């Protein structure tokens, strides 16, 4: 475990060097570290957030200093506490944002041409029919490696290798909410109207981010995701 400053009010706990060589194991290890950090309730720690191989720890140096630590020792004091927390067994997996982890979440997707402007490109590149692309994409099992880019955007690991497609040369200025895309070896869903460069192959009627709810995002890092193919009619019905 490596602990590295991220400026003067945050640090990064690097749990593993690589993600791609062992995504499942890495995610489990990162989530365990996240939970240990939460359980440790270290004074001055404001929040913790996972991403692929790391857990970021945001802290208030003033609160740490109030524990009696000299300003020259703030980082070392925190790093020592973090290392100590890693030895603790995860007591309570349910306390993670109020629910047990990981969950299995099914997401309905409509792959109709109307919602899939880049499906042909992805199929051409993979030398598959569009139906084969949809079958491969919708039957694979994915895991949320990280949430970011915009609020609620899940980066999903587990895309069948054949479907890996580089980002578009020119990103779109505006992508409709719910759009499902492929970017490199990952797939993901745009929760909000935003710019983006991924190849769009479908759309979900589900809301992935709602700031009036807590938690505001449908998915958490570590969740398992399955897709279910739906018709345009079902899409419209679910949207209502």
């Amino acid at each position, binding site marked *: 475990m490596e602990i*590295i*400053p*991220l*400026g*003067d*009010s*945050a640090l*990064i706990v*690097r749990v593993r060097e*690589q*993600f791609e060589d062992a995504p499942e194991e890495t995610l489990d290890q990162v989530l365990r570290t996240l939970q240990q950090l939460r359980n440790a309730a270290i004074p001055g720690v*404001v*929040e*913790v*957030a*996972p*991403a*692929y*191989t*790391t857990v*970021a720890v*945001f802290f208030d*140096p*003033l609160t740490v*200093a109030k524990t009696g630590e000299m*300003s*020259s*020792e*703030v*980082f070392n004091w925190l790093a020592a506490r973090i290392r100590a927390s890693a030895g603790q067994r995860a007591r309570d997996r349910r306390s993670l*944002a109020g629910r047990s982890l990981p969950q299995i979440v099914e997401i309905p997707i409509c792959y109709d041409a109307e919602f899939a402007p880049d499906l042909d490109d992805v199929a051409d590149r993979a030398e598959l029919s569009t139906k084969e692309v949809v079958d491969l994409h919708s039957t694979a099992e994915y895991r949320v490696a*990280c*949430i*970011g*880019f*915009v*609020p*609620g*955007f899940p*980066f999903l690991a587990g895309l069948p290798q054949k479907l890996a497609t580089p980002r578009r040369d020119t990103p779109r200025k505006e992508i409709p909410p719910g759009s499902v895309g492929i970017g490199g070896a990952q797939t993901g869903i745009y929760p*909000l*109207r*935003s710019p983006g460069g991924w190849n769009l192959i479908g759309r979900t009627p589900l809301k992935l*981010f709602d*700031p*009036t709810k*807590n*938690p*505001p*995002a449908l998915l*958490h*890092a570590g969740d398992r995701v399955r897709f279910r193919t739906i018709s345009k009619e079902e899409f419209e019905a679910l949207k209502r």
Partner: protein
Amino acid sequence: MQITVRRAGFLTSVQDLGRTGFREFGVSTSGALDSFALRVANLLVSNDEGAAGLEITLGGLQLRFDDERIVAWCGGEFDVRVGATPLPAGHVCLVSTGEQLKFSAPKVGCRAWLAISGAIDVPLVLGSRSTDLRAGFGGCDGRALRDGDQLYLREFRRSQTAATEEISSWSAPYDWASPTKRDPVLRFVRGIDWERFDASALQRFTSEAFAVSPDSDRMGVRFDSPELKREDNVDLTSEAVAPGTIQVPPSGKPILLLGDCQTIGGYPKIAHVITVDLSMAAQLRAGDYVRFSEVSLPDAHRLLLERERELERFRIGLSLQGP
């Protein structure tokens, strides 16, 4: 009970000290880009330090007050007037019913933070009143203010403050009220990827002046030149970034991230501007030049602690001024 936005100006938004606790869901910090300036302005008008105020970018804001309020602001070199009377940064003034408050374009700097006694009454969204302009929630309907908007204010107790219709003779310390400097030097601590840059790139980073690009915004200050190329071009695994992070995309043109930045990024992080210097960073605008100077992490923490102790003394001083 309310103010009318007669002119919203270039970009004005409702901000408090920002949003914490939702980074795992990709929610940015948002908040006043100079949170210290907003805290000082709030203290001056007897608000809670974290009360919601307005962040004004490049001026042009005109407000009309529908009842009496005490106001104060901190930030760049703006000409601010209450009616026809100039209100300097860090001073306190009572705005009468029907009176107007105007922010001109700044001579130096980019942003100002206005505190109004009672504070702006917008709903708490995910624990904050800040506007998340990128995701479109919080503040005033998740957007920048527009001409004609009405903003509700919370009640305040007039007796809390000694302000009269005169501009106060006392003020916040000058450096806090006006943190703007022409061609500032921003202090930094090394970033995680410092060693991915070769000696000549690091030499340029610590010795040359960087020109602020016009496409800078609340997400980050972009620099046009000089370019910092690194030797390897391996793709890095995305990990957390924070306001203050200086990342270097493949173009070699560094970006200094500010409050609306994403929660994660995959570009190498060469350095981080220290928290106390984010006040100056928030004032950068196109055409400015910036230099970077290294400090140790313990020094960054010491500087932050010292500023907080001074703020505590200021807070006590203010409470002694009261009636």
